[in-house]
C-alpha cells in the first residue's frame, strides 16, 4: 500500500526586495515557521531538500546550520523555476520509500535585478542577442494568440485579474490593482508582451514540513502527486531555450508531460480541481499553462479568459494568491510558495483570498532546464 504523505507545517517569508537581509536569513524565517507549525524541533526530520538557483554553494546547509538543524542529509536542488517542486518530489519519495517519517523541504532565493542573466547561456549567445528570456516568452505568447484566438486585451486581463487577487496577499511584492488601460499602456518589452504583463524576479523563501500520515488530524492536507518532467528532444519553444528544434507541432511540452504524470499519480482529473496556482511569469504563460494542464481545452484559452472562468468567484480560480505577477519570482522559493498558498486554501485559512470549499488543488511551475513541476494536494 502506498504511504500517504501530508503537509504538517508551512512557512513563508514575503516575496519582495530585502536589501538588509541575507538569503540565509530569509530561509531561516520560513523554516522556523514551518517547523513551529509542525511541532518539530531542529532534529525532528530525517532529510532536508533545499530548492535554489542563485544562492551558491551549500545554501541550504547555511540555513539549517543557523538553526542547529544539521546532521541529516541536506540536498540542494536546482531545477530552474521548478526547483521547489523538484525538492518537494524528492521529499515525498523519501517518505514513501519508508526511509523517512518527516522531511523538511524549503526554497530560498535572492534574484539579481532586471532581465535574468543565466550561466545557462554561453557568452557568445549573449553577445549575439540570443539569450533574451522575455523574447522567448514573447514567441510563445505570439503562438498562443495565433492558435487560441487570444487578444491583446485578454493577455492584459490576466495581469489585471492577478493583481486584483494580489491586493489581498500580504506576502506579495505588488499589492495594487492595475486597470486594463494601464497594462495596455505600459511600455513594450518584447511584443506582444508589455512591462505589466511580466513578473519581476525578486527575493523570498518558503518551507514545507512533510510527514508520513499517522493518527488523526482535522483538515489534513495530503500531497497526492509531485511530478517533475523535462523537455522532449527537438521541442523548439520548450523552456530549455534551444537554438533549434524540429518541425513538429504535436510534441507535448514539459508541463503537459508533468501534468499527465501527476494526474495519474493522484488519480485526479483536471475537472476535479477547485483551484490552481500556475506559472505566470508572463500573462500569456498563465493561459498556456491552463491549456497544458488541461484546465481548458487546447485552443480554448481565449474563450476561458473571456468567460472569466479563472476569476475569483468563477468555476475554477487560477492564481488566487495573485500569482507571480503580484508576488514576484524568487526562483527557488516560487514553487513552494504556491504549495504554502494551496495548503492555506485547502485548510480554509486563506482569509480574503479564500476559494470557498476548496478540496483539490494544483500547483505548477515551469522554466529553464527545461523543468516542469506539477503538484496536486487534497483534503
Amino acid at each position, binding site marked *: 500500500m502506498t504511504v500517504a504523505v501530508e503537509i504538517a507545517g508551512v512557512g513563508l517569508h514575503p516575496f519582495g526586495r530585502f536589501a538588509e537581509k541575507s538569503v540565509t536569513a530569509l530561509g531561516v524565517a520560513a523554516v522556523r515557521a514551518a517547523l513551529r507549525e509542525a511541532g518539530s524541533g531542529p532534529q525532528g526530520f530525517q532529510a532536508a531538500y533545499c530548492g535554489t538557483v542563485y544562492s551558491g554553494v551549500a545554501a541550504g546547509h547555511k540555513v539549517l546550520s543557523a538553526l542547529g538543524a544539521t546532521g541529516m542529509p541536506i540536498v540542494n536542488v536546482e531545477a530552474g523555476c521548478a526547483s521547489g517542486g523538484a525538492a518537494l518530489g524528492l521529499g515525498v519519495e523519501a517518505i514513501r520509500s519508508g526511509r523517512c517519517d518527516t522531511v523538511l523541504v524549503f526554497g530560498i532565493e535572492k534574484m539579481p535585478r532586471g*532581465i535574468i542573466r543565466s550561466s545557462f547561456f554561453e*557568452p557568445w549567445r549573449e553577445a549575439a542577442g*540570443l539569450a533574451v528570456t522575455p523574447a522567448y516568452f514573447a*514567441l510563445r505568447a505570439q503562438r498562443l494568440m495565433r492558435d487560441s484566438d487570444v487578444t491583446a486585451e485578454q493577455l492584459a486581463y490576466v495581469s489585471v485579474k492577478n493583481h486584483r487577487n494580489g491586493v489581498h496577499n500580504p506576502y506579495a511584492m505588488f499589492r495594487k490593482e492595475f486597470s486594463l488601460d494601464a497594462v495596455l499602456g505600459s511600455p513594450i518589452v518584447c511584443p506582444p508582451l508589455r512591462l505589466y504583463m511580466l513578473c519581476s524576479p525578486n527575493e523570498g523563501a518558503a518551507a514545507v514540513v512533510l510527514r508520513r500520515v499517522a493518527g488523526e488530524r482535522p483538515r489534513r492536507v495530503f500531497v497526492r502527486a509531485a511530478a517533475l518532467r523535462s523537455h522532449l528532444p527537438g521541442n523548439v519553444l520548450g523552456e530549455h531555450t534551444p537554438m533549434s528544434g524540429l518541425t513538429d507541432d504535436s510534441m507535448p511540452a514539459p508541463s503537459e508531460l508533468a501534468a499527465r504524470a501527476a494526474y495519474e499519480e493522484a488519480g485526479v482529473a483536471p475537472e476535479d480541481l477547485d483551484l490552481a496556482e500556475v506559472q505566470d511569469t508572463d500573462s500569456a504563460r498563465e493561459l498556456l499553462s491552463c491549456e497544458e494542464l488541461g484546465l481548458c481545452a487546447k485552443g480554448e484559452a481565449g474563450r476561458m479568459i473571456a468567460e472569466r472562468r479563472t476569476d475569483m468567484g468563477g468555476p475554477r480560480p487560477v492564481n488566487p494568491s495573485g500569482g507571480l505577477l503580484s508576488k514576484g519570482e524568487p526562483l527557488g522559493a516560487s514553487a513552494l510558495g504556491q504549495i504554502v498558498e494551496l495548503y492555506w486554501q485547502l485548510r480554509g485559512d486563506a482569509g480574503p483570498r479564500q476559494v470557498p470549499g476548496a478540496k483539490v488543488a494544483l500547483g505548477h511551475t515551469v522554466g529553464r532546464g527545461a523543468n516542469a513541476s506539477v503538484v496536486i494536494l487534497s483534503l
Partner: protein
Amino acid sequence: MERVPVSEGLFELNDAGEGHLIGARCGACGRWHFPASADCPYCAGEQCQARPLSTQGTLCLFTTVTNRPPGYEGEVPFGFGVIELAEGLRVITRLSATDAERLRFGMPMRLEFVRLHVDGDGREVVTYSFAPAEASR
C-alpha cells in the same frame, strides 16, 4: 575592417558577405540539428555530418527586443524569431526587420550576416540573421 564570427563553427562566410549556417544531419535517424555537433541531440547517434543549411526559409514566429539584454553590446531594437528551413528544422535567430508591420506568418526569409559590435582588437564581430526575402531583391 577585419571580420570575426561571434562564435566559430556556426556559419561560413566569404569576403563577399555570402555564406550559410552549418547544421548537421544524423546518419542514424536522418534528422538535422543546429549548431552542428557530432552527437545527435535526438537519438544519441554518433555519426552526424556537418552540412550547409538552406539560406532561405519561412517565418514562424517573431518579436522585437527593445531593451539591451545582459552581455549584449549591439544595437537595440532588433528582431528575434523562429525560421523554418526545408531540412525540417526550426532555427531561433535574430531578424533584421524590427518593424512587426512588415512581418507576417509564413513569409519567405533569407539568411544574411550582420555586425554586432567592434571588439577590443578593432575587429567587427558578426552573426547570422534572417531578413524578408523580397527586401533586397
